[in-house]
Each structure stands twice: as structure tokens, then as C-alpha cells.
């Protein structure tokens, strides 16, 4: 039994499906399950995911086979167990919010600010959710697929 299936058998009501992509173990969850699953995976003696190595998001706007627009992707690693797991949480366009994991892993603080800045996904419970790459007064979220690539910003003006 691989790692993703172990996670699913231990938390059957939190995990929706498991995938194995190019040797990476992936579990897919609904967005309201992320907080309890993340805290369980961090403290569970079998998994001990004590390191969040990455947190990012994908916009699947033009993918017809994807019903839900956004996926927030958590890249977890266990330094003690030496195993890695990806969690994909599906976030709909109508309610782009998800629970923050910054209280669990402080590394998530800036990652979540970046995902908010680029994709406009709000993280509930984040200590200071503000833009990190773009400036205050920036209009829109530039990595959304419906952001016009040549859009001009109000503070910058038509020349740029």
C-alpha cells in the first residue's frame, strides 16, 4: 500500500481520491477538510509531516474536465520518515476561500499571501493576509487565466 492509500485508509471521510503521478503521492480533498487533515498528518506518528516545502495553486479555468476551478496544492515532507505527500484541495470559483495552515506550519504564511496575491484565494485564519509580490492598489489577480495579459493598471497609467 503506497503512502496516499495509507492516508486515505486512515482518514477515509476526509480524503476524496488518491493519485500517483510520476512517482508523486497525491491525495485530493474537499476544501473544508484541509485543516483537520493537515493537523492530523502533522501530528500523526505514522506520517509526521513536519515540513511544508511548498504551497501553490492552479487555475483550471479552460479545462473542461475540471468542474472546480482552483486547486490549492500542498507539498508536505517528513524529515523523520523521509516521505513526501501532495495534497490538492479543490476550491470553487464562487467561494474562493480555504482555511489557512499558517498556524500549523509558519512557512505557509508567505506562500498563502502569494496565492492570495496571484490567484485571489482567501485564507481564513491567516495572521496578515495582504499582497506580497504586487503593490497595494493593484487591480485583479494576475495569474488567474481570465486576467488580460495586457491589462493596464490604474495606478500605473496607459503608457505601461
Amino acid at each position, binding site marked *: 500500500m503506497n503512502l496516499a492509500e495509507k492516508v486515505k485508509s486512515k482518514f477515509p471521510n476526509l480524503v476524496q481520491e488518491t493519485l500517483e503521478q510520476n512517482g508523486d503521492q497525491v491525495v485530493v480533498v474537499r476544501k473544508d477538510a484541509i485543516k483537520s487533515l493537515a493537523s492530523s498528518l502533522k501530528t500523526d506518528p505514522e506520517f509526521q509531516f513536519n515540513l511544508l516545502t511548498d504551497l501553490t495553486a492552479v487555475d483550471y479555468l479552460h479545462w473542461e474536465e475540471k468542474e472546480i476551478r482552483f486547486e490549492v496544492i500542498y507539498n508536505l515532507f517528513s524529515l523523520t520518515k523521509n516521505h513526501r505527500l501532495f495534497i490538492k484541495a479543490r476550491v470553487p470559483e464562487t467561494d474562493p476561500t480555504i482555511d489557512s495552515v499558517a498556524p500549523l506550519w509558519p512557512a505557509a504564511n508567505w506562500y498563502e499571501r502569494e496565492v492570495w496575491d496571484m490567484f485571489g484565494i482567501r485564507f481564513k485564519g491567516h495572521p496578515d493576509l495582504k499582497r506580497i509580490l*504586487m*503593490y497595494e492598489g493593484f487591480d*485583479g489577480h*494576475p495569474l488567474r487565466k481570465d*486576467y488580460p*495579459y*495586457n*491589462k493596464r*493598471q490604474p495606478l*500605473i497609467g496607459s*503608457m*505601461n
Partner: protein
Amino acid sequence: MGEVKLEKFNFMTTTLNDAIGWARKFSIFQYPFVTACCGMEYMATACAHYDVDRFGAGFPRFSPRQSDVLFVVGTISHKMAPVLKKVYEQMCEPKWVVAFGVCTCTGGFYDNYATVMGIDTIIPVDVYIPGCPPRPENVLDGLMKLQEKIQNQKQEI
């Protein structure tokens, strides 16, 4: 006391404007504002093989108040734009600006949420050096065009 022969003395005549221009064009203290990959080509130009010191420009100053020419080398983003403008405003007159590479000239192949579409939307530019990145020969050509411009302009004192 015989007749004074003028050709015994080595001298030349010029105008003050030309003399100052000649002095200024061979003492370019440059401020390298290097932000991106063009910086590699800038370094190649500044090193011994191409010997930018032949043009009196071999002395980069990292203080805008002590420099004459602002070399803007590499892509300028919207967040960097206020910094570039402040550096330009800190430089003392007379000052010149060289746009090094297509990103500084026009934005290059970037047309997105982050990139300034040419630094001439922010500050005045004297010489544009196109190329992605420009070859050192191209940079030296731009430098000589800048010298020509400095020599021929009216010198503010």
C-alpha cells in the same frame, strides 16, 4: 630679440564648449543599474577583453551622486520603477541615460502585469542599445554614440 615664430610653440585653438565636451566625453563615470540577464553582457563589456576604459568609461561608481551616465541594464518592473526614478533624480547634472537591451528600450517581449514598457516612460533616455542581450561591440557602438552626443551638445557649466 628676433622675430617670434609661432610654430615653435605647440598650441591649438578651440572653443570652451568643445573643450568641455572633449573632457566630459572621456570621463564618463557610469552608474550600472543592473537588474537582469543583460548584466552578464555588461560585465563582459566592462572586462579586460573589450576594455571599456579606452573610452574613459571604465570606472563604475555605485553612488548616483558621483556618476554621469546611468546605465539601465535589464528589465524594469513596476515595483522597481520608483527606485530607478529616484536614482536618476539623485544624479547631478550633467547626466545622461543609456537604455541597455530591448527590455529597457521598449519592454522587449514582455507585455504583462509586471513590466515597464520601456524606461523612457519614466525617465529621459539619450542612447538606446537594442539586442537581447546586445553584443559587446553593440554596447561600444552605443557608448561611442553617447560620446558623440556629449561632444556636440551645448555644455551647461
